[in-house]
Structures are given as C-alpha cells and as structure tokens.
C-alpha cells in the first residue's frame, strides 16, 4: 500500500517534475555551450560558454537556485494544498493506515524528487566541468560547494512550503509564516556561505538536516491534529 501511495504521488507530480527537468536541461546545455540545434558551438569538442568559469560566475548559481526554488515551492504546495482544494484528503486519510505514514510517504517522495531532480543536473554539470578539455578554465570540486549548498537548502524550502500548504490558516495571515521563515533561512544560508568561513561542509549539512527534521516533526503534528473539513 505504501507503494501505491508513492506511485500516486509520483503520478500527481509528474507534470511539475518534467517541467523542472526541462528547465534544468536548458540551463545545463546553455552553461556547457551545447546547442541542441547546432551541436557544439565553441572551439572545444563539447562546447562551452566562453568567458565564464563553471560554478564561479554567479549567473549559474542564481538561475539554478531560482529553478530549484520554484520547483520545491510548487511541489510542496501541490502535494499539500491540492488535496485540500479537491477534497481528496477525505478519500485518502480514512484508509487503514496511520496519518503519519500517509504524510510520511508524501514527504519522502517529495524530498527525493527535489534532491534527485535538482541534484542530477548539478552533478552532470559538475562532471562536465571536471572533465579535462571541456573548458579553458581551472576547476576544483570545492568550487561546486555553493551550488551544493543551494541544492541542500531546497529541502528546507520544500518542507516549509509543504507546511504552509498543510496548515489550516488564512493565506494572508499566519499560513505563510513557515514559508517566510524558510525563505529567511535560505537567505541566511547564502550569506553565511559567502561571508562565514566555517559555514560549509558538515556544519551546513548538519544545520539543514536539523531544520528539516524540525519541519517534518511539525508537519506530522499538524497532519495529525488539524481538521479536514
């Protein structure tokens, strides 16, 4: 039955996922200088947007964060608000399965989608950048750290917006509080990464996981205690 729930979630979010993957595909092909229509466009065998250093110029990080952010936001809302709007919580939640497990499946599928859909294009871009002969600029894996930080932080965005969708409150009142709080955290994370030397690696990972765990706990509490009317 968990499989059925997971399949349902995948099916319902398939459209969003495809759109996000398309956007990432366009971004990565643009960054690598590969044109779908004309093939390689630069002097190198695969192509490269000349004059830029992979992962160092800010365009990539900004666009990657925007696409990932929109995907995480829409996914979180799609999985939580849509069931309320269409009334299907009443169909779903009286099944003989604990509410925590039903919502747990939703969250697992959602966060995996965020990590995989945002992570795979990032990994492809990083592998391309790490491959000798693809671009005329230096590359160190440490240069990818800000992008991975943004990738990781998207889980907070996802959980925050899922919680906003789940909480039964007015949209113009406290309902968007979790979403606003997560946006602030993301902003803080970016600042920390740029300005604070210790904000990297395990510290960032541990902090994000801690915030994620707190958000999941609140989501499960809200799912158990809220009214579905």
């Amino acid at each position, binding site marked *: *039955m968990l*499989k*059925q729930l997971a399949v*349902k979630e995948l*099916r*319902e979010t398939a459209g969003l996922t495809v759109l996000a993957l398309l956007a990432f595909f366009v971004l990565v092909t643009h960054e690598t200088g590969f044109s779908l229509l004309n093939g390689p466009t630069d002097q190198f065998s695969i192509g490269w947007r000349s004059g830029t250093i992979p992962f160092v110029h800010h365009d990539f990080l900004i666009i990657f964060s925007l696409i990932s952010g929109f995907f995480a936001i829409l996914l979180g809302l799609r999985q939580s608000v849509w069931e309320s709007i*269409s*009334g*299907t*919580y*009443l*169909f779903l*939640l*009286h*099944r*003989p*399965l*604990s509410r925590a497990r039903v919502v747990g499946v939703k969250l697992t599928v959602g966060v995996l989608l965020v990590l995989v859909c945002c992570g795979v294009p990032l990994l492809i871009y990083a592998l391309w950048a790490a491959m000798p002969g693809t671009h005329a600029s230096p590359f160190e894996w440490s240069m990818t750290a800000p992008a991975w930080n943004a990738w990781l932080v998207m889980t907070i965005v996802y959980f925050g917006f899922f919680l906003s969708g789940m909480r039964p409150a007015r949209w113009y009142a406290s309902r968007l509080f979790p979403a606003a709080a997560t946006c602030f955290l993301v902003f803080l994370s970016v600042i920390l990464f740029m300005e604070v030397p210790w904000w990297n690696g395990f510290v960032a990972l541990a902090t994000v996981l801690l915030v994620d765990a707190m958000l999941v706990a609140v989501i499960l509490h809200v799912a158990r*205690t*809220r*009214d*579905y*009317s």
Partner: protein
Amino acid sequence: MNATPSLPIKPEPASQQRSDGTLPDAIATYGLTKYYGDRAVVDSLDLRVPHGSVYGFLGRNGAGKSTAIKMLMGMVRPSHGRATLLGEEIDDIRPETRSRIAYLAEGHPLYRWMRIRDAVRFTRPFYPTWNDELLEQILKHFELPLGAKIRRLSNGQRAQVSLALAVAPDPELLVLDDPTLGLDTVVRRDFLESLIQIIHRQGRTILFSSHILGDVDRVADRIGILVDGALRVDCPTDHFKQTVRKVLLEFASTPPELAPCKGLVSGQQVANRLELIFAGFGDEQRQAVEALSPVSIDVVELNLEDAFIEYTRGTKRALPVFIQERSDAQTTSSQGAA
C-alpha cells in the same frame, strides 16, 4: 406561541436496544462536541447506532451532520467528548479495525486523473478482505467500464464508483455522508436500490445522512435528527412518524393563545386557524387544545418528510407570495364595486 423544539423523543439507552446484550454499538458517541469559534456546530452528541441497523442521520443544512460524521471518521477533532467505532476509541483506532469501516465522503471525492482501474488498484492493497468479485458485480451493474476516466464521469457515476470502492472491502460498518446529494431522481433511486441490496445481502451497519427524506424512509430502520447541532430525535423511523402529529384547530374568530404544553413543538396562526405540531399527541395534549374551545379539531398524520419539516423548521414558514395577489384581488374587487 412558536415554541422551540423540545426533546420529546428521547434516545433509548443502547443496552435496551441490543437483543443479545453482548455486542457493543457499532457507533457510540459520548458528549461529542465541536466548536467553530464560539458556535457549537455539534453539541453534546450522544448517539448510539446498534449493530446491524440502518441509521438515517437527518438535519437541515448546517445542522452539523457532516461535522459529526467527520468527527466519527477522524477527519475533524472534537472539542469535547469521545466516540467509539466498532468498540474502539476513534483516537486510537487500529488500522485493522479501520479496514472494516467504509466511508463515503460528501461529494464523492476521487482522484480525477485516475481511471476506475487505477482507483481500484490504489484502494485494493489497503484492505485484506477486498472482494474483487463483488466489485466486478457492482461495476457491471452500474455499467462502469474499468478503463473509464473518473474526470469524465457524471456525478452519479462517480457516486457509483465511490460506492463500489467502499463496498468491495466487505465492510462491517458503512458511513455515508449525503451519498445521493446532487444525483438525479433515477440515479438516486438506482443508487439506493443497490444500497438496499447490499444491506440485505450482508446485514451490515449503515449510518447515512441525507436530505432526501423519501430515501431515508425507504432504507432506514432508525433515525436521528440534529437540530442546531443537538440530537433531538433518536428512535425507530416508524415511531417518529407515529409520534409527530399536526393538529389543526378552527376557530370562529381570532384563536386564543395556547399555554405551554408538553410535546408542543411549534404553532402557527393562519387567519382563524391554529396549526400545532406535537411530538406525542395524547390525552393531556387533547385536553389542552379542547380547553381553547375550537370549532373543530383535526389531527393529521404525517409522512416522514412532513414530520421532519414540521419538527425542524421552527418558526419559519414559506414566503408569503400570495400577499401581493390578494391585495391585487382586493383592488380589483373595490374597482368593480365602484
């Protein structure tokens, strides 16, 4: 004159309704209450639905039926009170017990992107007692192909799919929240006939809310009526019909006021006539109305729908649409006289 509905038809203790004395009630609530803001939408609901009964849960719009049902199904948390389903507290109900309970929510929510086949595939793994043969029979009866897309089905067909999915696990308890709402007469009748077949075939406990009193009359052997969130009636259907009486008193001139009387639900003066609704019209009530010295007393038996309407509508009456016509007629006659 217009009295507020009292509590003349009181719930009987559950223990007196059970024949074997061992089975707990399929549904039991104890002071179940839900507040939205300051308003008690459901107020101290003490409901008992015996095993094997078909219970019609009635009330006007906003009476609290859906909220009460949602509290039973764990969709809405009670502000006070508690409830048991098949002997287990709703807060701690085990998945095994929940798999013996089916629920049809109001409006028949289904995933519209699914085909009927997908909905079956999705629902089946939750229930160890799923009966494919029964499901096929029901779908075949309703002429619903498995490949049909749910978003392309009519309201009636979606209701039928919901019923099929609810019944396929062979549930002991079936809770239906206004299952025939929005269905046309033919589909409603067909839906109800199917429900009756299921009841007779399996002898399960069914609680269903409805606005269509004819449906309830056909199916329910017991009814409960919610008025402003409070359970005012809980008794066998026939008992309710036999108890509620409309008493028409004709007077030569303006009727006098009737003193408060036991069982009086409401009263309405129409010209020289007094229309009184009683829950239980016996000797005491007859003496009270005779004391008013009317020209005639007419005691009218009511069907379930009329009894329900008279019992629940209180002081409200139909819009006086004929006032204008009457004044027009008066104008015409005065013009004629002139």
